[in-house]
């Protein structure tokens, strides 16, 4: 058994100077490719990727449609946005639907909003909208349906 094969020498090997530079690559590989570096590194990378995604999709846009009970688009309906303020919701802004019943809110600052539409003749139910980050661009998958009896 050579001197380098002894267990205590194996422990001390990374600390010793190596004039020939042999094994430096494996030393760096061992220092970097271990779970104490890889797991925090993966978390940091995931955080950076997520922040990149957020910065590209946080325009504060909410797009949707307003229809009447029979499914026809309603033009000129007013859409009200309420944002969460500690434990209550307060009005943040309004938008009006176009001829095709589509509305676009451009300045949503929150990650949790409620939204409803109203006309002089009716009102929709409040839609609770939870987002993954502040100002996430969103398209409502279901239209806001005006109901003459509601409100």
């Amino acid at each position, binding site marked *: 058994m050579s001197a380098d094969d002894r267990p205590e020498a194996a422990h001390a090997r990374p600390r010793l100077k190596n004039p020939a530079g042999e094994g430096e690559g494996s030393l760096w590989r061992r220092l970097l490719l271990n*779970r104490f570096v890889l797991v925090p590194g993966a978390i940091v990378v995931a955080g950076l990727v997520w922040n990149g995604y957020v910065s590209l999709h946080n325009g504060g846009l909410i797009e949707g449609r307003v229809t009447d009970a029979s499914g026809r688009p309603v033009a000129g309906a007013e859409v009200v946005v309420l944002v969460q303020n500690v434990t209550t919701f307060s009005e943040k802004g309004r938008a009006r639907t176009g001829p095709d019943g589509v509305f676009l809110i451009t300045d949503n600052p929150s990650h949790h909003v409620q939204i409803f539409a109203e006309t002089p003749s009716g009102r929709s139910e409040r839609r609770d909208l*939870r987002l993954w980050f502040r100002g996430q661009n969103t398209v409502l998958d279901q239209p806001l349906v005006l109901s003459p009896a509601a409100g």
Partner: protein
Amino acid sequence: MHRYPRWPIHLALLTVSFFMLVPFYWVLKTSLTGENIFGYPPSLWPKDPHLFFYVDVWYFIPFARYFLNSVIVSVLAVLANLVFNALAGYALTKDFRGKGTVLLLFLSCMMIPFQATIIPAYLITGQLGLLNSYVGLALPLFSTIVCIFVFKASFEAVPRSLIDAAKIDGLAEWQIVLRIMLPLSKSAVATNVILAFIWSWNNFLWPLIITRDADLQTLPLGLARFLSYHEDTTGALYAFCVLVLMPGILLFLLAQKQFIQGLTSGATKG
């Protein structure tokens, strides 16, 4: 060799583990559903789980700021622990006059709760001008007696011949600690890192007393603040608890092998 049936031990361990893990499961489940924890009958499985309570936590309070503060304070505590405890542990492996008294003093000091020494600790920190600072937040945890004994036990397991050889090679005492003792005591280092990190991470009373700026508050203080603001948001509160617990659990899972070795290294010596 006589072989005992292992299933009774496993059954007992599973039962104990179940009772120990149920509270954690309940916290996790509530953080995903926000359900009323006093509801009866309680539901075992989460109904309509989602992660939006975690988003609420992130935005309701300056979570990132608290998290960063906790990380800075914990890293300071861990680094200081490694330096001071290793040096103290190495000193205690030497024979010197009054060593028994020092050991006795250390052991007796372990029985004094921190609450009893908090006023002198505050006054000393104030005299050093470290109130309301990161170093001041970490200062009481710069060295812990339990970890000194962990290092002492680990260093005593290193063969005396290695230290003698190092001395013959001309290494100074601090070089022996740095280049011989610490590389051979990885489990003690891991134990120190985990214990110092968790104690610092969970510390509530000391940061509460010495911080004045909201920007210097750590996660446990943030949790108390969050509770006072949003006491009716059960889901978000539990999500906050999970986020506070996560780094400590992650660190333990990463280094559990070394941690267990470090705690038991002194127990099996002949």
